[in-house]
């Protein structure tokens, strides 16, 4: 195994895992968020509690789940409930600390479009739509986003507002009455964006080897850089080992 090289996905997964805290109740999606959660559980957050929108609570999958409703999530889980219950008793009631979000477009204020490119009634590209994300973005205490750093994914404004970031600024989100604090970080293959006091996403960290120029070139708005810009710790051999050998031995998400 080559521990010095790693893929963009691995870099995002490892950096997202580090943002999770021990004891967090996380609303997990499949794919790379699932890997980030399982990596955190095996490193610094053994008490991370994973729940899934399919209604699975405290899953301990024996294999890498390939869909949000994989049967391996159920066998050995702590509880299973209906979808209505997961969205009311868990999410809406405030029992979810962390949600993961994704979408085709993320704008300057962390608003997300997962619905449509172009006009809603006459879609140029029809995307899957909200699923759980409209409510996760509003009600999870903190949200994280993982996405490749590309200009088309980071427009100034999203074409369709599927789920809320900071709207046009933190004040507007606060006034809307939603309980969650909104997106706390966007982890890309180049670095990490975090909201400033106004809610605008600014560059707060670069991964080793990435530059401010690379980040700016691949962002659709005039990307600000934090005074305290830091360089992330490179993935450790142990993080890579767990990811490659234990969590995704077939390399599906590399």
């Amino acid at each position: 195994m080559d521990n010095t090289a790693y893929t963009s996905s691995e870099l995002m997964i490892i950096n997202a895992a580090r943002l999770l805290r021990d004891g967090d109740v996380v609303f997990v999606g499949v794919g790379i968020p699932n890997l980030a959660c399982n990596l955190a559980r095996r490193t610094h957050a053994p008490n991370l509690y994973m729940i899934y929108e399919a209604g699975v609570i405290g899953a301990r999958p024996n294999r890498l789940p390939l869909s949000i409703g994989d049967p391996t999530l159920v066998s050995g889980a702590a509880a299973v409930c209906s979808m209505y219950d997961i969205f009311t008793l868990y999410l809406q009631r405030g029992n979810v600390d962390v949600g993961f979000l994704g979408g085709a477009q993320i704008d300057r204020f962390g608003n997300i479009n997962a619905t449509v490119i172009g006009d809603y009634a006459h879609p140029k590209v029809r995307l899957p739509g909200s699923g759980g994300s409209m409510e996760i973005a509003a009600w999870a205490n903190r949200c994280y986003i993982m996405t490749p750093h590309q200009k088309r994914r980071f427009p100034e404004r999203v074409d369709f507002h599927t789920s809320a970031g900071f709207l046009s600024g933190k004040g507007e989100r606060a006034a809307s009455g939603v309980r969650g604090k909104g997106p706390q970080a966007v982890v890309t293959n180049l670095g990490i964006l975090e909201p400033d006091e106004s809610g605008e996403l600014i560059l707060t960290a670069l991964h080793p080897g990435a530059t401010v120029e690379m980040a700016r070139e691949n962002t659709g708005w005039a990307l600000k850089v934090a005074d305290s810009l830091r360089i992330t710790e490179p993935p450790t051999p142990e993080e890579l080992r767990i990811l490659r050998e234990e969590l995704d031995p077939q390399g599906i998400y590399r």
Partner: protein
Amino acid sequence: MSKLCTLSEAVSRLIHDGDTVYLAGFTHLIPFAVGHEIIRQGKKDLTLARATPDLIYDQMAAAGCARKIIFSYMGNPGVGSLKVLRRLLEAGKLEWEEYSHFGMITRLQAGASGLPFLPMNPTAAPDLERVNPNYRRLRDPYTGREVVVLPPLHPDVAVVHVQRADVHGNAQIWGILGEQKEAAFAAGRVIVTAEEIVAEEVIRSDPNRTIIPEFIVDAVCHVPYCAHPSYTQGYYDRDNAFYLEWDRISESDEAVQEYLKEWVYGVRDRAEYWEKLGEETHRRLAVPPRYAAPVNYGEY
């Protein structure tokens, strides 16, 4: 009174052209065999409602059964797009009505409960509210804050696949529960398909496990492997390989029609379909047992 009949009879008798149908299941227990039978019987102008249309509504739309789709996440779960539906929507050839998962499930819960609406906390994401007039706002009389409300959804027919049912229609599910109960109670008619038809005594040995009671059920059909390529917890695994394969098949309308010809029109029923899948697939999807701890209800 036994409600046992063949799936072909149930579809013929209970699903009519123009109906709103809800084939229930969130990834788990998706009644593919029923979708295929609907295709074989050439049902038309259906409104297909489902939180996650999954491959089955891609297939039904491709076969020309659908006039409209109601959904909250139109993806191939774990893979990507539902390309048939996407093409139809982008071409303006299919009507649609869209919610978030919670909105969709709230409509079913309101329908199941006999309520005229149910409230949801606001999400600060206004665009879906803007494009779908079913979303309304009300003022909470206690705090003066606004809530978002949705009206009930009452499908004409709900189809629910389960692990086991008795001939009366008492039906039990374990594993992911999705929206099966809500869809059944919200609907006007209910078709239950089951991996196993068991004696009433089996159901009644564990009444807390029963999701759907007999008196809301119109037909019970014994359809082993009904859910493939989806799965039935404890009975067979999800066929992830087929979900990936559909991503390739659904690239072209021709390949989709070829698929339907071979795997839907080309087989008589689910038994023939399962047979045709072959032993290697059967082996690949088999699952070793893992039993629940015993539960004692007591002889009172």
